[in-house]
């Protein structure tokens, strides 16, 4: 069966994929629809009179939000790598005592509902004046990716050849040199996987944004879309155009970085 490659399977596969991706197609279709045609019945199934109205409106209003999302995403990547990489190194290669417990705690941390975390952060941020700040949102969003990052990097580093480590002396300076000049370069692919997911999750976050930054001068694009829906229900082409633009990182991941995505899914089996 593996060798015959029956054509009907390809046909069926294409049909199933088309069904699955219909909502994505619809998002694109509506984003190119003229405002006057949005509520026409029957709906326009194909964008035969495409317009960029929606995209113009979206860019005019959402461009600053896209910038904020980008900043938050990059901040979270930095935060995640700085915390996760050394910790993973300690757990996987320096035989940190209690790493079993730490492993377990990280698994549990991933299971905590974001709503509850958001309330805790809210109570803390009110006092510290971090509410409605980009920095506060970066710190909160990083909690989505840090446990995943440590677990994935530790799993990878544990598979590195032991001989590499034994070559260097395990005192403070030796461990640091081994970390920066051997372990980190060898972990390059895993670091990329972790970075990509940290970025994507921070970029996609809505719960922390809508609770910790909703009156902020700088809001991420997810909150922008949400406020958009609340404010004008007529301009769905602009809403969908924003949604399309907000999906660009996902599209990039799929096209340019697919092998890193696959690595993330199978190694971590994690999705918030």
């Amino acid at each position, binding site marked *: 069966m*593996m060798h015959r*490659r*029956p054509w009907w*399977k390809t046909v069926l*596969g*294409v049909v199933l994929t088309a069904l*699955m*991706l219909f*909502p*994505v197609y*619809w998002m694109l279709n509506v984003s190119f629809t003229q405002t006057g045609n*949005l509520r026409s*019945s*029957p*709906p326009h*199934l194909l964008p035969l009179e495409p317009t960029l109205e929606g995209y113009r409106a979206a860019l005019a209003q959402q461009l600053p939000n896209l910038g904020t999302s980008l900043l938050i995403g990059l901040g979270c990547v930095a935060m995640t790598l*700085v915390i996760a990489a*050394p910790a993973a190194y*300690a757990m*996987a290669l*320096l*035989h*940190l005592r209690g790493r079993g417990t730490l492993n377990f705690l990280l*698994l549990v*941390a991933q*299971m*905590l*509902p974001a*709503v*509850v975390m958001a*309330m*805790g*952060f809210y*109570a*803390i941020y*009110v*006092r510290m004046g971090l509410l409605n700040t980009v920095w506060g949102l970066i710190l909160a969003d990083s909690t989505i990716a840090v446990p995943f990052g440590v677990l994935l990097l*530790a*799993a990878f580093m*544990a598979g590195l050849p032991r001989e590499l480590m034994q070559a260097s002396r*395990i005192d*403070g300076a030796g*461990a640091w040199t081994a970390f920066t000049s051997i372990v980190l370069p060898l972990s390059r692919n895993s670091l990329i996987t972790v970075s990509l997911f940290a970025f*994507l999750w921070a970029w*996609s976050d*809505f*719960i922390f944004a809508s609770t910790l930054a*909703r009156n902020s001068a700088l809001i991420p694009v997810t909150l922008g*879309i949400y406020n958009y829906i609340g404010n004008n229900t007529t301009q769905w082409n602009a*809403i*969908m155009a924003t*949604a399309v633009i*907000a999906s660009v990182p*996902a599209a990039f*991941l*799929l096209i340019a970085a*697919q092998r890193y*995505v696959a690595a993330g*899914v199978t190694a971590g*089996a994690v999705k918030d």
Partner: protein
Amino acid sequence: MTTDVADRDDVAHRADRVRTRRRGGLETTQWVALAFAAPLLVYLLGFYVYPLLRSVDLSVHDYTVRAFVQGDAEFVGLSNYREVISSPLFGKAIMNTVVFVGGSLIFQYAIGLALAVFFRSSFRLSGVLRALFLVPWLLPLIVSGSVWAWMMNSESGVVNFLLGIVGVDPINWLTSPDTAMLAVVIANIWLGIPFNLVILYSGLQNIPEDLYEAASLDGAGSGKQFWSITFPLLRPVTAITLLLGLVYTLKVVDIIWVMTTGGPADASTTLAIWSYREAFGTGRPDMSPAAAVGNILIVIALLCGLLYTYVQRRQEES
């Protein structure tokens, strides 16, 4: 993955101890390891333990907006929990959570498994198509939620238009209490299919090909092969997939909030939505009961999480 790390470490660790002892008993390596792990430990305390303690603190006080700023909320013990549990919404929210999680998991799993089996034998384009199936999983939830909300719009939605072609009367998907839950479950099934497909597909890769060859030599059809080889051998992967799905579906907020905000008439209010709405969804934040609901949700999630680690450990032992 965990035991693998532990096993290797055990051996290396013993070697380590020998080495440090030779140096004179000072466990230098442990101090070095601790230094590398220190940022994470501080982070866990500051960004997990502290917020969690604060949310417990919220739930045992009576926090008003004023008390929030001044920090003089009255201690009320467990009365927030009593209030929440005796509220008429409690039973409803539990039921809704069960329906939302159960409905989502069953169909995500069944469809994911069917697709995984379908993609198991490679055919022209199978790799590309399988990659395309990941798209819903990578989109921001708020994007998927708003697309589904517009598709299920009563008057202008494409779903009602397509149903109209086959003679079904328009359905008020998001505005009728009878169908709101069904609507969010459908959207959530769509979101969960990619995750189930990927995990189950990689599980299928570990089933030896010769089992199927032997079975077909014995004259077993593809249906029999599925029930006597695929399904039983996939049981460990199934358990992990469903438990992870359970833990992640319990805490879903975004998708329901964007589509229905838990309404109409609380028809799609799960525990997570209830907590979110009390705290942030209305003009008047009511943090204390919200934290009580949230902490009940945490207890449920942790019980499921413990079950997950228990099952995972048993599988790694066998």
